[in-house]
């Protein structure tokens, strides 16, 4: 390993621009002649639009145009799509209602756009939006799952009777029922997985520019996957043809899943820029983010676990209702199905699993992938059940887990996933050692003598990263392939540009991806530049989500590198009059083994471009591309243990310690990996203790700002103790697995298990606020 190669904690190249205020986020961009858009949004959760009067707004100062949903319909702009088809247990498809980018007739959640004002300044657009008069007929609303599925509930979409979108199952129902019938013990639990707001710190924004003579659009947007945005915008929405649309996602201030999707504002900005003949900018404010960014989680689950007399788990039965909101977002259907139920085996050898997922419409903002996307929900179910079983059977929770760990790999679960490798005992050992698990009873007793309740909670998670392969996900209903592309361009002077279809919005790709190139060629990372986030530069890509960038994106770069190296070796061999089999690459030089003959990379590159002296028949130039489609998911796993203290008088919880032992396979940049874990832990702990969306009975979003929705702040969190164990992923040549979601997947159960252990009451919903904890203690 070189000092900047794989495994080195290199400080990030991209940081200089961020710490000096020179980042370039969408809202930082100004175009000549740019106008500003502000949306008129529904104040009602469910209503029929009787009329919209835009005449007063049109006459307000600076107004360039006021556009409504009906005009979208008239211009044949398509409805938003859902890109993953799910088939119900009766063989029918999803019951999907139409989602127009601005509602022409009916609104189905508070905040849904009905019109947009375009003006010279943002303030003028806001002022004029106040003057748009919308006459609504209010309709009864169903803001949660129970209300939506109640008999006689108001119907949101005519296509979805009973507000049920699909009723999907996985696993063997008969075998699982039989396992429960013959079980020595059965454990059951009702679980609510609370709805969350992703809350990337940069609000969503979009700038659209239409070039009339060229019939060409440019969209600057806060996207995690600009190519997919372009594909969907062109193929489904009738806004522009794919080759007439450039999508740029420059610096993006966090995503966590919420910026994967196409949103109405991006579509409307593009369409409006053509309508008004000027560039149109929209920047959301925080309340708009709460009202319109795709939310996460929101499951109601009944879960049961069957165990035999030796405390081996013999069956798992799960029935989950998933709230998808008022409309189906781009990947929403896959989140509670293939990304959730397929991980219900957890780290355990469970021979029989059956899961049913019923997805429903409610009068709330659409729900889609949020950090972990289905996997946190699965892990929470399994790890809460495991803990509950241990308490019911009076076994040490760590021991019960150990007894049921999968120890032979590969392991085929009953729910599609085939785990390739893992060592679950190793991570549990590491976590138990780090927190001094054995010493806990003494610490608990001491805390008790001081009037405090002390609890310890274990959570052994597994996740499935880098969704793949494309053929398999296609057969399961996915509308896109899940490969990644890369191109490696060696310039004539020996500097290198690496073009990737991954998108970095905080993950540090500009550094870690360079480290691979630096490692292979023995050059400093300053000689390498990562190019991403612009569909005019990179031919295609699938973007960044699901912890896929290293396992899939970086492997694509490796494949392109191998082609570049092979050609460069041929050129070097020719220049050095040696056999290409004798050429090795070291410290930026191509050397003939066993001799002192060598040629530096820039000279090889120059030879490729001057083409004066190349092997016969060789094409000039030195750039290669690759598409990489993995053969399987990767399976990061780990053990988290949390020790908490509870003040019985107030219900206030405080961390004593939080340890995380993860197995991510090979670490490209350990510093960046640990940072990813920290962030995930904060979101998992946030879900457990602080965060939760509240809609009132009429469908008003009560938590619509940072004053009402509790974001974790520095004072709410502990300093984390991290360690790593390693099994190399056999599915990709780098042995990497993915680390971005781990913390969010594993942390919540560890925290809730610790608190319920401390208070001696297993019934505690997230977020476990002091109020809820106090009531759980005192009844």
């Amino acid at each position, binding site marked *: 390993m070189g000092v900047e190669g794989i495994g080195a904690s290199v*400080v*990030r190249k*991209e*940081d*200089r*621009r*961020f*710490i*000096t*205020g*020179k*980042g*370039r*986020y969408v*809202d*930082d961009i100004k175009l000549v002649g740019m106008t500003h858009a502000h949306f008129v949004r529904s104040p009602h959760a469910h209503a029929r639009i009787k009329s919209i009067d835009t005449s007063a707004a049109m006459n307000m100062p600076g107004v360039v145009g006021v556009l409504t949903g009906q005009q979208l319909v008239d211009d044949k702009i398509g409805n938003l799509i859902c890109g993953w088809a799910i088939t119900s247990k009766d063989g029918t498809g999803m019951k999907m209602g139409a989602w127009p980018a601005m509602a022409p007739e009916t609104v189905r959640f508070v905040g849904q756009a009905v019109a947009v004002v375009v003006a010279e300044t943002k*303030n003028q657009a806001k002022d004029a939006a106040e003057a748009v008069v919308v006459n609504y007929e209010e309709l009864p609303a169903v803001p949660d799952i129970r209300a939506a599925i109640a008999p006689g509930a108001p119907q949101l979409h005519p296509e979805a009777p009973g507000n049920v979108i699909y009723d999907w199952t996985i696993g063997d129902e008969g075998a699982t029922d039989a396992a429960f019938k013959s079980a020595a013990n059965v454990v059951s639990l009702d679980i609510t997985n609370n709805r969350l707001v992703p*809350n*990337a*710190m*940069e*609000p969503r924004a979009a700038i659209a520019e239409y070039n009339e003579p060229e019939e060409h659009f440019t969209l600057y947007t806060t996207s995690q996957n600009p190519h997919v945005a372009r594909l969907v915008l062109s193929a489904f929405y009738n806004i522009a043809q794919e080759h007439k649309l450039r999508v740029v996602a420059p*610096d*993006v*201030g*966090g995503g*966590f899943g919420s910026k994967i999707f196409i949103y109405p504002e991006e579509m409307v900005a593009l369409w409006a820029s053509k309508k008004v003949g000027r560039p149109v900018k929209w920047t959301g*404010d*925080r*309340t708009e983010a709460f009202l319109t960014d795709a939310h996460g989680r929101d499951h109601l689950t009944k879960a049961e676990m069957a165990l035999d007399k030796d405390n081996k788990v013999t069956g798992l039965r799960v029935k989950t209702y998933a709230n998808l909101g008022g409309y189906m977002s781009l990947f929403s259907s896959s989140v509670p199905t293939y990304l959730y139920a397929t991980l219900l085996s957890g780290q355990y050898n469970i021979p029989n699993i059956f899961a049913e997922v019923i997805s429903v419409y409610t009068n709330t903002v659409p729900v889609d992938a949020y950090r972990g996307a289905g996997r946190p929900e699965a892990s929470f179910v399994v790890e809460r059940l495991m803990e509950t079983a241990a308490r019911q059977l009076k076994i040490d929770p760590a021991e019960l887990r150990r007894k049921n760990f999968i120890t032979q790999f590969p392991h085929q679960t009953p729910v599609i996933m085939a785990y390739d490798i893992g060592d679950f005992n190793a991570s549990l050992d590491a976590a138990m050692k780090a927190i001094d698990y054995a010493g806990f009873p003494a610490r608990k007793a001491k805390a008790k003598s001081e009037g405090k309740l002390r609890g310890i909670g274990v959570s052994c998670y597994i996740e499935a990263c880098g969704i793949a392969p494309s053929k398999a996900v296609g057969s399961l209903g996915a509308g896109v392939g899940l490969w990644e592309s890369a191109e490696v361009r060696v310039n004539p002077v020996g500097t290198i540009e690496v073009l990737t279809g991954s998108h970095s*919005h*905080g*993950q*540090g790709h500009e550094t870690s991806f360079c480290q691979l190139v630096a490692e292979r060629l023995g050059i400093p990372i300053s000689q390498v530049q990562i190019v991403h986030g612009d569909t005019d530069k990179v031919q295609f890509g699938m973007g960044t989500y699901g912890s896929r960038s290293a396992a899939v994106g970086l492997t694509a770069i490796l494949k392109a590198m191998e082609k570049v190296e092979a050609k460069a070796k041929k050129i070097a061999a020719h220049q050095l009059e040696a056999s290409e089999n004798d050429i090795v690459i070291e410290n930026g030089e191509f050397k003939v083994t066993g001799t002192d003959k060598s040629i530096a990379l820039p000279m090889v590159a120059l030879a490729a471009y001057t083409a004066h002296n190349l092997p016969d028949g060789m094409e000039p130039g030195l750039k290669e591309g690759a598409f990489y489609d993995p053969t399987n998911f990767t399976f990061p796993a780990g053990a988290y243990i949390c020790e908490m203290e509870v003040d019985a008088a107030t219900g206030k919880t405080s961390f004593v310690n939080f340890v995380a032992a993860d197995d991510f396979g090979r670490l490209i940049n350990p*510093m*960046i990996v*640990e*940072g*990813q874990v*920290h*962030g*995930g*832990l*904060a*979101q998992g702990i946030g879900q457990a203790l602080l965060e939760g969306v509240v809609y009132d009975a009429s469908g008003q979003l009560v938590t619509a*700002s*940072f*004053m009402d929705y509790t*974001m*974790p*702040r*520095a*004072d709410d*969190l502990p*300093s*984390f103790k991290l360690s790593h164990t390693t099994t190399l992923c056999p599915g990709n040549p780098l042995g990497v697995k993915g680390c971005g979601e781990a*913390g969010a997947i594993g942390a919540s159960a560890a925290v809730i298990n610790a608190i319920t252990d401390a208070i001696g009451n297993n019934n505690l919903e997230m977020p476990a606020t002091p109020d809820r904890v106090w009531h759980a203690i005192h009844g």
Partner: protein
Amino acid sequence: MSTVKLTVNGKAVSAEVEDRTLLVHLLRDNLNLTGTHVGCDTSQCGACVVHIDGRAVKSCTVLAGQAAGSNVTTIEGIAKGDELHPMQAAFRDNHGLQCGYCTPGMIMSAIDIVHRHSGKLDEATVRHELEGNICRCTGYHNIVKAVLDAAGRMKVAQAAE
């Protein structure tokens, strides 16, 4: 519309703004200093923190007119040429940022925290004092480390001056 005159990063500036204009918008829209960010509309997140006459202030809570005559320092004004401010360097060296969006506000708040505690800081104090700034990426772990690291660096830098 009013003319507002103030000093920003050591330079006298003047801008024609609507009376309702907030300082953050004057900085971003009129002066093109886009390092100061807007992350919320309720003065909760701290992405817009700048220094007014040496004190950390959320620039979304201040009308541009209220800042008239004052000395404003933004994230663009704290490095000495190519030499980063010790807090900037500490954020980079401790991986105290990921997406970078909250970072300018964090750094400006953190400098003020160190100044107010004259170098005597511990983890609990840093965590408590950072409560006005939200980061969604880092879990704060490395931000806290960076602030404590910078506190030492700033003391050394001060001693050297």
